[in-house]
């Protein structure tokens, strides 16, 4: 028996902890990731490992510089998620150094320069992606069509090593645009969206992932399943994903109805690019999203709106990463303005009036 009087209760605790939360997210990502690694073959596997390794190394170095316990920091699993999501957001055949640069910016700058776990304003994986996207646009937009492992078209092990780690590798011959990039370039050439859409693979192929893109942009059913799994496990709630996807869908549908030649449809927006991955796995990052449910709805809607604007009007074909980062910057303000109503008080914080009171 021990007499300890060191803190207030409660003296019991739920079974959840940071580690369990993080590993549940990884479990939700695993099926889609495995399928994508299969679709894009050895180069994708190498890139995935390089990204994870670089992120973990950065975390260990940063924590040690800060005088912390790097084993403990690594065991919470947060950096694994960062690395994992970052890998999913890169073109699968990108060279190794793109992954390393992205990892350094993601972990060292976006996370640890702000104070480490829980302190960062911006989603680390998205910072990493955006830095390499604006710095190395050629490598970051060289998407290849799917070449599943062990299929005839797939590169062998040695060739794959060369693709990821070789010098001056050119993917010009085989690269293809993602569907968002494709309709954007076609539109710039004066070909209406309604026409260029016809040249894309069918919606079902797009859904299943047999199209060029980053790893996280393909295998939508598996990513969606992972997202629903997270909801079922109560790791995330519906507020951010639904608000984001609904806004995106609504804008797409309405504007497409007004001018089908200029605007892509709602369903196309949902299944293109990183919409689904972003809605369930990136925008829902705890640290960089609002804490209240109403704030989360506003946050999700904002991402949906910005994604649509960037995709439709800006120079970049895909806007989820930018939209998430922009809304991350707004999170502290959303947190201040969207609070739950306090029990016994009005929204303004005054005590509720009593019946008969003026």
């Amino acid at each position, binding site marked *: 028996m021990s007499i300890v009087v060191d803190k207030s209760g409660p003296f*019991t*605790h739920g079974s959840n902890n940071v580690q369990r939360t993080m590993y549940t997210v990884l479990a939700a990502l695993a099926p889609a990731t495995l399928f994508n690694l299969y679709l894009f073959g050895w180069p994708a596997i190498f890139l995935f490992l390089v990204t994870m390794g670089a992120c973990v190394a950065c975390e260990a170095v940063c924590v040690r510089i800060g005088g912390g316990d790097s084993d403990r920091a690594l065991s919470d699993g947060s950096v694994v998620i960062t690395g994992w999501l970052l890998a999913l957001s890169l073109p699968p055949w990108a060279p190794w150094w793109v992954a390393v640069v992205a990892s350094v910016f993601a972990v060292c700058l976006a996370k640890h320069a702000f104070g480490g776990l829980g302190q960062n304003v911006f989603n680390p994986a998205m910072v990493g992606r955006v830095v390499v996207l604006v710095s190395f646009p050629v490598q970051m937009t060289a998407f290849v069509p799917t070449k599943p492992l062990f299929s005839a078209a797939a590169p062998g092990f040695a060739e794959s090593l060369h693709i990821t780690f070789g010098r001056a590798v050119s993917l010009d011959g085989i690269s293809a645009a993602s569907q968002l990039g494709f309709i954007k370039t076609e539109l710039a050439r004066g070909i209406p969206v309604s026409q260029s859409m016809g040249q894309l693979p069918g919606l079902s192929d797009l859904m299943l992932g047999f199209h060029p893109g980053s790893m996280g942009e393909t295998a939508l059913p598996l990513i969606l399943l992972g997202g629903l799994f997270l909801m079922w496990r109560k790791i995330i709630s519906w507020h951010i994903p639904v608000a984001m996807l609904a806004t995106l869908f609504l804008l797409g549908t309405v504007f497409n109805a007004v001018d089908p030649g200029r605007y892509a449809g709602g369903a196309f927006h949902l299944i293109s690019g990183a919409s689904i991955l972003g809605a369930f796995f990136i925008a829902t990052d705890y640290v960089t999203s609002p804490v209240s449910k109403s704030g989360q709805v506003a946050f999700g809607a904002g991402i949906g709106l910005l994604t649509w604007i960037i995709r439709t009007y800006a120079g970049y074909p895909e806007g989820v990463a930018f939209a998430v980062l922009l809304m991350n910057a707004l999170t502290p303000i959303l947190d201040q303005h969207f609070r739950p109503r306090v*029990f*016994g*008080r009005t929204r303004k914080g005054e005590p509720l009036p009593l019946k008969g009171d003026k």
Partner: protein
Amino acid sequence: MKLFPIMGGIHPDYRKEMTSEKPVVALPLPAALYLPLQQHMGAPASATVAAGDRVRKGQLLGRGAGAVSAPVHAPTSGTIKAITEMTAPHPSGLPTMTIILETDGKDEWADLPAPIDDPFAAPSQAIRERVAASGIVGMGGATFPSAVKLGLGTQHKLEILLLNGAECEPYLTCDDRIMREHADAVVDGARIMAHALGAPRVIIAIETNKPQAIEAITKAAQPFANVSVAGVPVQYPMGAERHLTQAITGRETPARKLTADVGVVVHNVATARAVHEAVRFGRPLLSRVVTVSGGAVVEPKNIEVPLGTPVAELLAFCGGAPGAKRLVSGGPMMGQPLPSLQVPVVKGTSGILGLTLAETRESEPQPCIRCGSCVTYCPCGLVPVEMASFIRHEKLEEAAKIGVQDCVSCGSCSYICPSHIPLVHFFNYAKGRIAALDRDRRKLEQTKALVEAHNARLERLAQAKREAAARAKAAQSENTDAGRANA
């Protein structure tokens, strides 16, 4: 009965099965009882006996002092050994004035006040006086003097006496057992209290995880048209006064007001039983049912314990609690750590828990990952994550602005926090500091007002002196002038 939802809340592991089927047993009379003069909210009682006095069971030992206070009675017969300072059953472990009663084993009753024959014909005042004289306080743990709360009917138009049998704290089964074993006493006590309050209806709210208690109370309430039973959802903190009121009536008590302001007064079921004993038999509050439970306790039990029994004896009666990581008085959510095993059971002690590490699931706090669970589960609509970060930086005013004083310390946020951050600890600290700062500020203002009044008085005196001097001078010069004129 139509119920209303309450916001937030959690579903902890209840672990009530350890004691829920164990009938209440009486504790063998301890050799000595330690009776703090303060076992309630408000002013401590003042001792009416001296060392060496022989006292009988039910005799007054300490008189309630002031409007909010409660008397203390002898739980059995014996001799007063000393009245001295001893460790209080409070986490501070500070000393408190305690009467030590050496029991003589005869359990000889003193002359008790006569039963009130027909309490429903008696004036409210008579019931309240009896309840006050019997030392009855809120036995759910708040220990607010019940007579004061029964007086709320004089200033408020009350509609409902809500009897709280929710017992939403994990482990505790004392109220459950009382409702099962003393259903008639509970219902009778509730009707007497409703009469004293002037409340036409009685609703007894019980969480649906206590079907036998619901059955027993429903049966006991059958003959009375104005008494009904409501099974409320199992959801912590359903037993919190304001939340229970909302669940039953849909009325939300405004901040800084009482439930009485929305026509409801809440009392605990054990309090109702004590009122029944006091009114029908003249017996003051001498003992209470305590749940001794937890994974470390060898033989968990529900025990009728004389007030003043040291916790150590209680644990020994249950085979001890070897390997307890935490010893808690009350439930695991809102209970308090015990400062020592020598502290006594008092009127508010609902449970003594010996918890193992597997039950407490304690772990080093990790950084907050802003998951927002605390916001989702807070039953008061607060943002614990933000309050805690303000308090961490000693920004108490900001924390107060976003409602830290509206926190009821239910512990839902700490329970759910994946990072194991002791949020309630922060809030209790802040509430204490803010209260202390307020006191200091008031004191400073009072001192300032006194000093200003003092200075003003001195100034007035000086002014009066100056005026008197001026008048005297004027009179003198007038006299002189007159003299000259005369001359």
